[in-house]
């Protein structure tokens, strides 16, 4: 059990906002991220945008991560990181609202960070992209982009190494899902670690 945390949380409280559509597993991903950060002995919160979740409707969920005890229980308006699980939301939701100029944007898209920057007309921030849609269709046989997007987040933030993330999924998903499902999610995670594109 390590306390070796990364720069992402060493700069104080790290707040993350996830954008997805209901049914794409973003709430599970945020919860998994919280559980993963416990293996690093960190403090964390994971919470959905409160309200009824409808399949296909835009949703948000959030994480707070810190090396210290967290006692703020309000919503997150100025995140350090924004994660977009569904690329079709880019035309629907202002995903960079409140994102700090030195903040990080991770998007599930087949576009490169440069192409995405041009499309969004975005200034500042650091953009990463990962084609989680195709990774999940290839590896899971269906559109379920949450785990590859989480993989990209882990790679970018260095919260967990690839080996640590795989070990976690084996342990955690192994309790709930069949060996086949666990293996395919691990392959999707590994591909995200390799394929995430940096600016």
């Amino acid at each position, binding site marked *: *059990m390590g306390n070796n945390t990364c720069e992402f949380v060493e700069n104080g409280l790290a707040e993350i906002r996830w954008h997805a559509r209901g049914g794409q597993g973003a709430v599970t991903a945020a*919860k998994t991220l*919280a*559980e993963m950060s416990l293996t690093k002995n960190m*403090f*964390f*919160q*994971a919470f959905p945008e*409160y309200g009824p979740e409808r399949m296909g409707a835009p949703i948000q969920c959030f994480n707070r991560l810190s090396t210290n005890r967290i*006692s703020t229980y309000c919503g997150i308006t100025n995140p350090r990181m924004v994660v977009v699980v569904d690329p079709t939301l880019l035309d629907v939701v202002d995903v960079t609202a409140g994102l700090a100029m030195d903040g990080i944007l991770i998007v599930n898209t087949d576009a490169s960070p440069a192409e995405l920057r041009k499309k969004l007309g975005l200034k500042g921030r650091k953009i990463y992209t990962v084609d989680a849609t195709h990774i999940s269709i290839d590896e899971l046989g269906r559109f379920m982009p949450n785990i590859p997007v989480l993989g990209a987040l882990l790679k970018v933030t260095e919260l967990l190494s690839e080996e640590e993330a795989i070990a976690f999924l084996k342990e955690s998903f192994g309790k709930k899902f069949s060996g086949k499902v666990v293996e395919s999610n691990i392959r999707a995670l590994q591909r995200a670690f390799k394929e995430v594109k940096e600016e």
Partner: protein
Amino acid sequence: MVMSKNKLQKTVAVVGTDAVAEAMRQINPDVVAAYPITPQTAIVETFAQMVADGQVHTHYVPVESEHSAMSAAIGAAAAGARVMTATASQGLALMWELLYIASGLRLPIIMPNVNRALSAPINIHCDHGDSMGARDSGWIQLFSENAQEAYDNTLQAVRIAEHKDVLLPVMVLLDGFIISHAVDRMELLDDATAKQFVGTYKPDVSLLDAARPVTYGAFDGLYGYYFEFKRQQEEAMRRALEVIREVGREFGAISGRPYGLFESVGLEDAEFVIVALGSAAGTIRSEVECLRDNGMPIGMIKLRVFRPFPAAELVAALAGKKAVAVFDRSDTFAGNMGGPVFIELRSALYETAEKPIMVNYIYGLGGRDLSVDLVNKACNELAWIAQSGQVKQRVNYLGLKE
């Protein structure tokens, strides 16, 4: 999973409702009666799974309404069982007449209530209006800041309720969604320690004790002792203050987390103080600590016990303060009297020679977010009030769309 410093506890990531369900699993009550439909929360769903999986020996009674849930709980408790249920919002409202029967019969029923708004308009989000309406129903009310406190309070509630000097039902309160549906880090006691702390329940009298037959809740009209019964309830509530402290100390010894009637920051040198309940107290504490680091003479009190109201203790803690701002997550609709915590604390301070200036901030109704910016605004207003001695507005609505 991480082992905590205390070897007997494990650190986990859980949502608030599961934290409460874990406490219920360790308590292993004889009977749980619950109604599972919205606005009920996952507490009873998770617990029902534990029953189905054989993790507890509880007799689980799925009933057809919250009115029936509390009725069944009362019947089982009068029969001598250790009984729990859980509810929220309209569910608590539907229990209304039974709440008074539970406390009037002096039945130590334990009920976590997830604080959610009452209709109308329809709203399922965090709001203390549901349990504040039950403040005069004779139930002890313990508020929780986070999942850890909801778990800790649930375990302690059993000891408080069943104490021979108390014998009153206890409501454990946790904020809807903000705590109930959020994943938080917390420490769980190991089963043996929790079970030993909770102990076994041996009621002095019960309906099923055939050797010593008793009657519960019989007619006690004009020439009876109704008045005396009610006075005894009030006496029990007064005695509960010391029992709550005693149980909180004992819980601290086994967990490293001692509990009192309230918790405070900076009272030793603060000139003005904020008083709040529930998760908002966490957000307020982090802002108060930040402002104190920048030299503002501010302090805060997180009120854990609202019933019984620790009036003398709060008055002593606030002695000599210039100004106090009370945060209320519900309104009384009394016509500019403010929220319930404000009204009661203001009344408690009436006898003191040097009264602080008092203002009220009603916030967060129906789940409206209490942001750090809003807290900061109130803190700065309070600083100005303490310095100038002037109050522009006694009762303020913080975060209203205007």
